[in-house]
């Protein structure tokens, strides 16, 4: 029996539908197996694609012969990197938003002259069965010149390190952007350093002079995978008119449409991308792998083709997050005010530029008010799979270093860690280390809620037990979004939107529409529709959907409301000014006889002017940063080094929790992933650059037995840039766990762990070293 209330919502404003916990509209199909995921699509005459992958981490392709495979019975098509469009090597912005380097994207989908990591795609086959396709892969003859792999960012930065890309441009000239390729006539030498950037604020030297206590710390992390259940998949079918349809599981089917069109060489308007249900993404399904291969194979074979990765391919050839090295130095006065901070972040990008180091650099000091600061970041290419986004990309590794140092500083000053953060917390108007002023955030309120929570004051008894805390910051994102709402004659709203639903967002955006219209949530049927059926909608990422698509649904609902007001005025032959819409009822302001419910008006759409269609295309700013604070109790087994999580409480400012259960689910899921990242997960790679644990049997993710109940506290400090105060909630929950657990381990055994994962071997080794026993 708990002696406190779990999962608290500190609500500041109540609504009729917003803030309630209705049953998710996609739930029944998912739990009864009727929901269609990416690989569930099966078309008449469909072929099966399989991909030949590099056995080497770094090698030049000397020759590639596919003739034996092409002649194998049942094989209908074979493709190589030469079949993909090889676009410009300059980083560019896509028509629809995100920056990317299309040459690198193409070369990651399939190699051309060099393979850059073990598992890099080299060729693909489409055949009448998966087994035939796999057999044919063994008939493809590839001759490699094996090159020494560079597996670590610091090694890759050495001047004499082998170059991953001979023509990768450094950020030395303005005309060549980060992650670009040198022009053919440019005599400059290539580099493994894809990007280096800095932020400065105030006078760092003076700031450290003012400090009474200074703490310096190095921290490192290794690559981990998002670990989504559903592997990447793509199915393609060409039509007689030259149009292409793609079915896939992604975090943005508009991204799938544009990237595939560019790599296959057809106009965007020729491609329709259909979003299937998604079995987890966590950022990694913001990239494409299978879709262009399926499209090119389908073109050659003149038949639909499905390409699906297996789990080993997902580990070896999709995008994990970076291995990192972060050094921080903090200074504070004896009364606990931070005076200066510096941070140096080195992130592995994988085989192509684009690690999340900008995210790490811009988040590392985000929770604090620090007058003098310096931050620099390095994006380094290595012979590993190209990294993808992973929940709050960059911020968890940065926080692991920063929050450990904050803990150490508070301890040296003899100040309670929450009080220390309250003394230095970022708030509206704080000058961030990166320059801009902080918008309205709820960090102080979150810290106060933590201080008041029973967990923080509970006795923690017994040896080898400790309590740790840590903060987390994430900037959140927004972007363009669309919504179209139609109304059935019996008064149900069919809501079409374009944000793939990875966290219950069908419900959270439908609630906002229902709230505006004053109708029950159950009278809205939200659907995520294909790229031909809705206006452009930016990716499901950056914890942005409930904000931006919520805005779109709010606006579409206002559109419906306005049209209904006009229809009612027409029916009653009164001035529009005399009609009002209150809680789902149209009524005359002074004549109580004139009254129509939403359902009654729905039935009268056609004779009063035709169907009512609410629509919105928006690009709202002001997503507002997210801040979190976690408390964790651990127990360390001094004989085995195993760390057990005894109790965990996660507090977070959600702005307004539209559907509190899904906010709690996001927080709990993020914490579970963070615990795995903290204690066990890692890409175990040998000296040849081969991942040795590329299955779920050997890649140790936490299971339910590893985790206690994760308590949540939702703090609501409304974001002023959203009609219901929403700020994104999906990502920041993964930022504090590693640091919080490290700080708890320190309290338990007196050893500061500075390298992830803090698995039993490492903890034991650290214990032995602290005891002077190195045997």
């Amino acid at each position, binding site marked *: 029996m708990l002696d406190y209330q779990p999962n608290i919502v500190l609500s500041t404003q109540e609504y009729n539908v917003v803030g309630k916990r209705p049953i998710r509209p996609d739930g029944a199909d998912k739990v009864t197996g009727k929901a269609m995921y990416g690989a569930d699509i099966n078309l008449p005459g469909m072929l099966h694609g399989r991909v030949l992958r590099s056995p080497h981490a770094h090698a030049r392709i000397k020759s590639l012969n596919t003739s034996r495979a092409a002649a194998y019975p049942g094989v209908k098509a074979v493709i190589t990197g030469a079949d993909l469009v090889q676009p410009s090597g300059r*980083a*560019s*912005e896509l028509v629809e938003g*995100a*920056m990317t380097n299309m040459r690198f994207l193409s070369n990651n989908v399939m190699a051309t002259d060099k393979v850059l990591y073990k598992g890099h795609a080299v060729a693909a086959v489409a055949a009448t069965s998966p087994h035939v396709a796999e057999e044919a892969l063994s008939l493809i003859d590839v001759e490699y010149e094996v090159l020494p792999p560079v597996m670590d960012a610091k090694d890759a930065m050495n001047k004499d390190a082998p170059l991953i890309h001979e023509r990768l441009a450094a*950020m030395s000239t*303005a*005309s060549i*952007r*980060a992650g670009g390729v040198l022009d053919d006539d440019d005599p400059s030498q290539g580099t493994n350093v894809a990007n280096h*950037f*800095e*932020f*400065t604020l105030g006078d760092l030297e003076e700031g450290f002079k003012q400090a009474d206590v200074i703490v310096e710390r190095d921290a490192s992390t290794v690559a981990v995978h998002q670990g989504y259940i559903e592997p990447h998949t793509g199915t393609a079918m060409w039509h007689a008119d030259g149009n292409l349809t793609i079915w896939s599981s992604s975090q943005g089917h508009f991204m799938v449409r544009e990237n595939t069109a560019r790599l296959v060489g057809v106009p965007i308007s020729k491609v329709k991308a259909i979003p299937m249900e998604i079995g987890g993404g966590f*950022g990694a399904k*913001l990239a494409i792998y299978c879709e262009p291969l399926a499209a090119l194979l389908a073109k050659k074979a003149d038949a639909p083709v499905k390409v699906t990765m297996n789990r080993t391919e997902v580990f070896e050839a999709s995008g994990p997050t970076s291995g990192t090295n972060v050094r921080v130095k903090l200074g504070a006065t004896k009364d606990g005010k931070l005076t200066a901070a510096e941070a140096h972040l080195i992130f592995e990008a994988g085989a192509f530029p*684009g690690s*999340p180091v*900008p*995210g790490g650099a*811009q*988040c590392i000091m985000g929770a604090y008010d620090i007058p003098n600061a310096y931050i620099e970041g390095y994006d380094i290419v290595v012979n590993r799979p190209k990294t*993808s*986004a992973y929940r*709050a*990309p*960059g911020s968890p590794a940065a926080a692991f270093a920063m929050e450990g140092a904050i803990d150490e500083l508070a301890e040296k000053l003899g100040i309670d860690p929450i009080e220390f953060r309250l003394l230095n917390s970022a708030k509206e108007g704080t000058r961030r280390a*990166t*320059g*801009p*002023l*902080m*918008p309205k955030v709820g960090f102080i309120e979150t810290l106060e809620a933590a201080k008041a929570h029973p967990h923080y004051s509970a006795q923690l008894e017994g040896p080898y037990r400790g309590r740790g805390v840590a903060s987390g910051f*994430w*900037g*959140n*994102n*927004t*972007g*363009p979004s669309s919504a179209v709402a139609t109304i059935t004659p019996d008064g149900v709203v069919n809501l079409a939107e374009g944000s793939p639903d990875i966290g219950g967002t069908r419900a959270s955006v439908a609630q906002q529409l229902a709230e505006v219209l004053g109708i029950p949530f159950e009278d809205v049927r939200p659907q995520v529709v294909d790229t031909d059926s809705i206006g452009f909608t930016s990716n499901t*990422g*950056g*914890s*942005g959907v409930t904000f931006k698509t919520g805005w779109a649904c709010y606006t579409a609902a206002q559109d419906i409301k306005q049209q209904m007001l006009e229809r009612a005025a027409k029916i009653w032959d009164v001035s529009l000014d005399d009609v009002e819409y209150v809680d789902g009822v149209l009524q005359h302001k002074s004549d109580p006889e004139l009254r129509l419910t939403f359902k009654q008006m729905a039935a009268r759409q056609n004779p009063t002017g035709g169907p009512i269609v609410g629509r919105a295309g928006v*690009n*709202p*700013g*002001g*997503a507002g940063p997210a801040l979190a604070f976690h408390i964790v109790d651990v127990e360390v087994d001094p004989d085995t080094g195993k760390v057990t999580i005894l109790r965990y409480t996660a507090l977070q400012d959600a702005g307004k929790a539209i559907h509190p259960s899904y906010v709690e689910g996001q927080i709990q899921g993020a914490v579970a992933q963070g615990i795995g990242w903290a204690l066990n997960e890692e890409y175990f790679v040998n000296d040849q650059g081969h991942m040795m644990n590329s299955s779920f049997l050997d890649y140790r993710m936490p299971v339910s037995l590893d985790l206690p109940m994760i308590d949540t506290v939702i703090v609501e400090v409304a974001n002023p*840039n959203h009609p219901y105060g929403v700020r994104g909630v999906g*990502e920041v929950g993964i930022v504090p766990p590693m640091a919080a657990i490290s700080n708890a381990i320190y309290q338990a055994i007196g050893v500061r762990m500075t390298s992830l994962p803090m698995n039993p071997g490492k903890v034991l080794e650290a214990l032995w070293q602290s005891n002077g026993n190195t045997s």
Partner: protein
Amino acid sequence: MPEVWIPPRMQALTGGKQQVQVAGRTVRQVVNNLDQEFPGIKEYLYDAEADDLVAGIAVIVDGEVSQMGLLERVGENSEVHFLPAIGGGMKP
């Protein structure tokens, strides 16, 4: 006049100045006027081919990441920052 915060890599072009006052009612005007005063800086910020900010650069006006880029309105007392955009989920 709006105050523009110059990213460290570009401060060589502004003689080491970290903040400069530049006239302009939109980000486009600010960038053009900045280039008048500090020739060459526009190349870091403006992509003529795309008629847009350089890919990978985000503009922050008064603490909010702009969704309008060059078209964003700038007030007389606004603060304008140019920061690296963040892939995979976050704006600066």
